[in-house]
């Protein structure tokens, strides 16, 4: 049986109608929201929307640099540095946006078949024992890392490059900090489901 036929058969075997049944809980239910998570996830979604426009700026900087270099012989080190500044800021800030929408890559070999409660337990243990300590560690060393850059007025190690290194270095701390906040928001949703008896909600249909 091909994968597709297998799935079709599986789909037929389990009814879609009952919110309580296993299939619903596996494929269509989501963690209940909390007041905290609504605020945080909403803010992160807005953040994601606004920073994402900068990809167009990145594209523009690259194209301008290519044109200047080839037509006017005027490529600049500053332009090259702006390129990775934009890219670095966006991916660091994107970490939290992506966590809020649960889009980080999971190996769903077994996870895909777990019920929402089991998934919630896995995320609870994972966030508390793995993610949050990792975030805390990066913040612990990240803040002095940025502070030192500020204190020494660090600039590009290339004399022709950009000044104010602390700004782009702050993206590291900001990105990791927001990641921690996003993780806490998800944690409240997990706690609401597992310990406060809140019921799962139906997954919003994807665009």
């Amino acid at each position: 049986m091909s994968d597709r036929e297998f799935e079709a058969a599986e789909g037929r075997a389990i009814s879609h109608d009952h919110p309580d049944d296993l299939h619903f809980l596996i494929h269509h239910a989501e963690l209940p929201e909390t007041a905290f998570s609504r605020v945080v996830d909403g803010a992160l979604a807005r953040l994601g929307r606004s920073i994402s426009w900068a990809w167009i700026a990145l594209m523009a900087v690259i194209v301008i640099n290519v044109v200047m270099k080839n037509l006017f012989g005027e490529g600049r080190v500053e332009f090259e540095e702006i390129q990775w500044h934009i890219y670095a800021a966006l991916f660091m800030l994107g970490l939290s946006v992506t966590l809020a929408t649960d889009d980080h890559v999971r190996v769903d070999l077994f996870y895909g078949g777990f019920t929402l409660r089991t998934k919630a337990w896995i995320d609870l243990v994972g966030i508390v024992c793995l993610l949050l300590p990792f975030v805390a560690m990066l913040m612990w060393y990240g803040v002095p890392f940025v502070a030192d850059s500020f204190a020494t007025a660090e600039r590009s190690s290339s004399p022709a490059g950009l000044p104010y290194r602390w700004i782009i270095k702050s993206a590291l701390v900001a990105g990791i900090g927001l990641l921690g906040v996003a993780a806490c928001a998800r944690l409240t949703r997990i706690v609401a489901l597992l310990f406060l008896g809140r019921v799962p909600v139906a997954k919003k249909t994807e665009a």
Partner: protein
Amino acid sequence: ADKLRWKVPNAFPSHLPALGDNVQMVADMLKTASDGQIQFKIFEPGNLVPPLELSDAVRDKTIDAGYTWLGYDAGKIPSAPLFSARPFGMEPWEYTAWWYNGGGKALAEDVYGKRNIHPILCGITGPETAGWFRKEIKTMDDLKGLKIRFAGLGGQVMQKAGASVTLLPGSEIFQALEKGAIDATEFAMPAVDQKLGFDKVAKYNYFPGWHQTYTAFHLIINKQVWDALQPSSRALFDTACTAGVMRNLSKGEAIQGDVIRGFEAKGVKTEKVPTKMLHALKKLTDEVMAEQSAKDADFKRVYDSQEAFSKSYQTWKGLAYLPRDFNDEKQ
């Protein structure tokens, strides 16, 4: 001596001749001379701490020591390139004279001491090549609009000369040079350039290495760690590193000639930058140095010290040595 087991990151791949191989030799000397008390585990670049972040890691005592090129610290310590390489600077033994006898060591220890780091001069090599070019360069006008990969203070000089300067990472240089995305690149000494295969894609190899007349390497040690060492250990470090300087210089000088002749056999044209251009580049360099001196007090202090030493040394240097082209004229 103390019993030390240090993880020591190397800012250069260990197999690169006269560049990355020196610290292993120093480590071997230390181990033998201390009867196995002092041992390093050398880590390849990036395996433990990224090369550009070595100084910070030593300052924070994430690692006890590292072998690096201080120029990587230019962003935080503007004077650092002067200790490691600069355009129209001293010749290598002139640099060691300045370091050991002309106040250079004290200056470096002061500047780096403020960052909680103790630097020990531990290796030095002669000039790099002036670069690999796809076309001939005859006048300063040829530099205008030239797409060139050029790092450091020399890069700023090039930018002043009107070149289109890029900082392309090492991994992209070959490809960019082959396809013509850049017209030229500087990189390292011939024996190292050979590894990147530039001779296959750029026909002209230019000399002299005006932009980097010496390349000095330092073993940097966390200052608290250094201060807490027994005098016998410190003496061993100083001895091994002084030997490292001599051996590194000797090896670097010994191996380049064969490599250059090998390039020539494959059709590479070995060229000299015209003296007139060198003077023009020197003038631009002076401007860059003046700008940097105005920006940073330590830069000014170190630069002035180097210039004063060179000036006084010139009396001896100009008189005592045979002219550079003496042997050529005889032929």
